[in-house]
């Protein structure tokens, strides 16, 4: 093992890119996390509470309806709690944890904790 035969080692990810990667990955991860948390809490008392608060603060109703529309698409009313899209939730949580996990790793590297 001669030193002369070896090349200099460079990191797999350019350290100059750490901040950008962190922000992007964490943003996407948090979006998916938020999306995930909507599902189990849909139509529970917490959901009503949030809605009452939002409406009382006269959030632009169209905006509110728009968001709800996109998130609670095609929701079957006849389904019970237990058949509630388990696979959908699992999938979303997997994607969310993937992005959050890598985002947190690059956050640690950016801050100087070179793990």
């Amino acid at each position, binding site marked *: *093992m001669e*030193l002369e*035969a*070896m*090349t*200099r*080692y*460079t*990191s*797999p*990810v350019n*350290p100059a890119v750490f901040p950008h990667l962190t922000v992007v990955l964490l943003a996407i991860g948090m979006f998916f*996390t938020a999306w*995930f*948390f909507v599902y*189990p*809490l849909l*139509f*529970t*008392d917490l*959901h*009503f509470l949030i809605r009452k608060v939002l*409406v009382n603060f006269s959030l632009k*109703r*169209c905006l509110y*309806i728009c968001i*709800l*529309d996109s998130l*609670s698409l095609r*929701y079957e*009313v006849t389904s019970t*709690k*237990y058949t509630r899209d*388990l696979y959908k*939730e*699992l999938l979303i*949580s*997997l994607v*969310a*944890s*993937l992005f*959050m*996990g*890598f985002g*947190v*790793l690059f956050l*640690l*590297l950016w801050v*100087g*904790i*070179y*793990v």
Partner: protein
Amino acid sequence: IGGAAIFVLVSCVFCASALADGLVNEDVKRTLDLSSHLAKITAEIQLANHGAARVNSLTLALEAELAPHLAFIGASVKGEEEEDEGLELKETTLHGQSGKFFEAQLPSSLAPGAKLRVKVETVFSHVLKPFPSHITQAEQQLVVFQGNHYLYSPYPTRSQTTRVRLASKTVESYTKLGNPTKSEESIEYGPFKDVPPFSQDDMKIHYENNTPFLTISSITRTIEVSHWGNIAVEETIDLRHTGAYLKGPFSRYDYQRQSDSGISSVKSFKTILPASAQDVYYRDEIGNISTSHLQVLDDSVEVEIRPRFPLFGGWKTHYIIGYNLPSYEYLYNLGDQYALKMRLVDHIYDDQVIDQLTVKLILPEGARNIHVDTPYPISRSQDELHYTYLDTFGRPVLVATKNNLVEQHIQDVVVHYNFNKILMLQEPLLVVGAFYILFFTVIIYVRLDFSITKDPAAEVRMKVASITEQVLTLVNKRLGLYRHMDEVVNRYKQSRDTGALNSGRKTLEAEHRTLTNDITALQTRLKAEGSDLAEKVGEIQKLDSQLKDLVCRSCQEAERLVAGKVKKDAYIESDKTLSGKRQELVSRIDNLLDAL
């Protein structure tokens, strides 16, 4: 320290060697540099082979009194091309003689009658003894050096001179063998003729030396390698002032007011770090020490360190200094094999003396087949495991110790190891796993039902809520339809295209019908659940039919305007009233929706 590029590799091999070489030191120029707290003795020897056989090796000797304090020894040969070649030295013993002996292999054997120039450098630590051993703050520091007037050599010396360089002009006393001459800061002894081998004559010089007498009693150097591109170095240093002890009180006032008070004390010193050092920190148990200056130069980073208090004789301090280095300067790789080339110990202050060094090299998790190439012998302790962020089975730590090091020991050590790149993925996957467990817990939690009795009201509430959501969306869609219709009418007013108007009206009718049917269906379901919201929905339907009428009327008005059946002003009037009524209806619908 000038000289050869390659220095010492000292390993302990004991063997007896006979000295019937016939080598003779023709001319020796010895320089004793006592200007710092170390004794640096350099001897330039002109060697001649007066024997009959070729000579392959050379023996160097050290006096028995000085030998325990030896920190570094190096020898080089002046070649024909004026290049110095370093010689490898091996420790040996000689029968019947005391002291330390080193055998040097010559690059080419010395023929009988040939001459050779050899340069031997030795550094001794803790040989300058403060005398008096205790001084007050106002006094000067005087030290005693006890050495040898002659060169201690296994070969006879024809002629030699010794030059002693001192730290100051003030000399209390010095031994006067052979009428030495004393100039400003140096004493010249000799020339001495025909000195037999192994000759010793005690030299004692008592002089003033106010240079910093700092010793690092122990240093722990931790190097943590990360494959994400960073090497973190941290040194924990215990520093002592090993000059004359301070006797009596310490007066801060005198110290600051008089320039020669505490002249032998140490206020600050400069540490030179590698050129690419970043994020330098200097702290101790209390916290950050702010009395430091960092200067980034082209080829190094200089930190001027000023401890919290000046160091007088017998005083000590403890601090931690750390910095980050980019890994591409020190880490090399070829496939799975990696090599780290770093200094075993770095510069702490000029003329440094380290009593005890511990080096800890932390390699990434999963490094295998670790192999270390050291420039000089060090003792390796058991490999440890270090656990830090995102570790599962620990990082391998190489531990090495050595005693009595000086500046000449600042050399590179090379560590070879194997590391599988896939293992780097373990770190992010650990975080991903942690997050996934969190989400999974939430999924299970919302599916748990701890209620003692079934609560039908909650079920109904949820169902009603979902139905109302859908009603909301549908009503909004309908209102959107009216807006779209407005746009079509406006376009018709400009383009006068009856076809477009008719098609627009048809789509409006069709969609409106479907939406209204959907809403009525939902309304019946709401009624089935026994909710009072069904009435509100009914009201909305009624208002909506009125709104639709108004929209149709405005559409007809526009048609009549285009056909010319009604005048422009009248149209504007009627349009205004119609839109006013529409606004009113829309706001009432909005209020009802809010109530849902």
